[in-house]
């Protein structure tokens, strides 16, 4: 049956909770017939394509408690904060370089003016561009339900393609980025088919250096496994070691071994495995330069 993306094909009801609490009450009440919508740039596409057919849309894009960026002992971002706002904030502080590079390359202007950071994570595409930088920054997410709230490390949030460990009665309310040390350098790059496209391969690195020694290193890859992933096996190789060209070569090979790419519409498993070490090296050296104080 042909898909008509001109319209939302089925009737549905839109609900406008005014608070997070109202939103989770509605989600609990309507259960699997309801979907939470913030920006809707991923969700509405899936409704149009007939992949999901919610009877109720719980629209949270205007709940004030979900839209904010505050900095205290960590950086807190409301889950319904638009990507353009998060980008503006991160671009003003070079500590968040990987995040601003990722958000700048996410989609296009029109998408970033609607889409939200919580939505990018909850949609849980393995190619979600905000995920690799948030993973290398050890991000946590706050989830809220009628039973209360819990905080989860982002690494434990992703479970599979478009699948998270969030319970069906939970809503993401906040993204928390722990305080980033001065002197940490980070970077992000994605590879695409055309300029505005979902990633084929993406990579984020965050490093701290003491002269030529790597004090700490975090590596995350996107679009090369069923979830955005940290590559701890590679991180262990470099931590505490003197960084030189041959070590970074070795790291790139290790990252390539650790990923689990598939062949899909955007790329082949072979391409992803071959190009990953090249991409990784570019991103690593850029993060390394930044950690050394050379932007």
């Amino acid at each position: 049956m042909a898909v008509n993306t001109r319209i939302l094909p089925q009737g549905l009801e839109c609900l406008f909770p005014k608070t997070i609490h109202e939103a989770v009450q509605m989600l609990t009440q309507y259960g699997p017939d309801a979907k939470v919508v913030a920006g809707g740039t991923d969700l509405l596409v899936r409704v149009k394509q007939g992949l999901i057919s919610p009877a109720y849309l719980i629209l949270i894009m205007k709940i004030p408690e979900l839209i904010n960026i505050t900095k205290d002992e960590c950086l807190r971002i409301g889950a319904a904060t638009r990507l353009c706002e998060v980008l503006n904030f991160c671009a003003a502080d070079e500590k968040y370089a990987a995040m601003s590079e990722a958000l700048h390359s996410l989609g296009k202007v029109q998408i970033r003016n609607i889409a939200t950071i919580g939505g990018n994570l909850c949609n849980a595409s393995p190619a979600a561009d905000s995920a690799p930088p948030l993973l290398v920054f050890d991000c946590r997410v706050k989830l809220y339900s009628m039973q209360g709230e819990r905080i989860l490390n982002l690494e434990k949030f992703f479970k599979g393609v478009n699948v998270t460990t969030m319970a069906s009665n939970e809503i993401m309310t906040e993204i928390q980025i722990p305080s980033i040390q001065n002197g940490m350098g980070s970077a992000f790059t994605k590879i695409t088919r055309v300029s505005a496209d979902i990633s084929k391969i993406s990579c984020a690195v965050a490093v701290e250096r003491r002269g030529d020694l790597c004090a700490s290193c975090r590596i995350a890859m996107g679009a090369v496994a069923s979830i955005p992933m940290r590559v701890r096996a590679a991180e262990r190789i470099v931590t505490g070691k003197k960084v030189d060209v041959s070590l970074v070569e070795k790291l790139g090979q290790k990252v390539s071994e650790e990923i689990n790419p598939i062949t899909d519409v955007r790329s082949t498993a072979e391409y992803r495995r071959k190009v990953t070490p090249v991409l990784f090296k570019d991103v690593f050296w850029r993060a390394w330069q930044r950690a050394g104080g050379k932007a």
Partner: protein
Amino acid sequence: MGKETIQLTVNGETREIIVEPNALLINVLRDELGLTGTKYGCGIGQCGSCTVLVNGEPVLSCLILAVAVNGANILTIEGLAKPDGYLDPVQEAFLDHGAIQCGFCTPGMVLMARDLLNKNPAPSESEIREHIKGNLCRCTGYLSIVRAIKSCAQKRG
């Protein structure tokens, strides 16, 4: 499913419209209001031909629920030219540089160009290409479009 009454200010005119909950902004603009300058190209956020400005910011009207923009200020391509009929400098530039072939991508392109020049009066070629990368054109190969936008930048200098 109950219909909703929403209020939209479109190209300076405020009106009340009755919509279904599943109505998309693009269809309200085109079918209810007869403003067919905004185009349906892909429906899934990839081509940019449905671009309009909501509260001054470019967005994709094919992915926006009408009920979600209740109370908003919307500018479509029809609202860009001045009230006295004089064209916006971006529109003049597109005409001068042959940046319109079939014209289908043009409304989205022109609105993105206007948005860019409002924020960055003298963009470089790469800044221009970056800003319009979400708007696909099957005819021009983008060269004439980029030249048209660059010419506006130079004029403001």
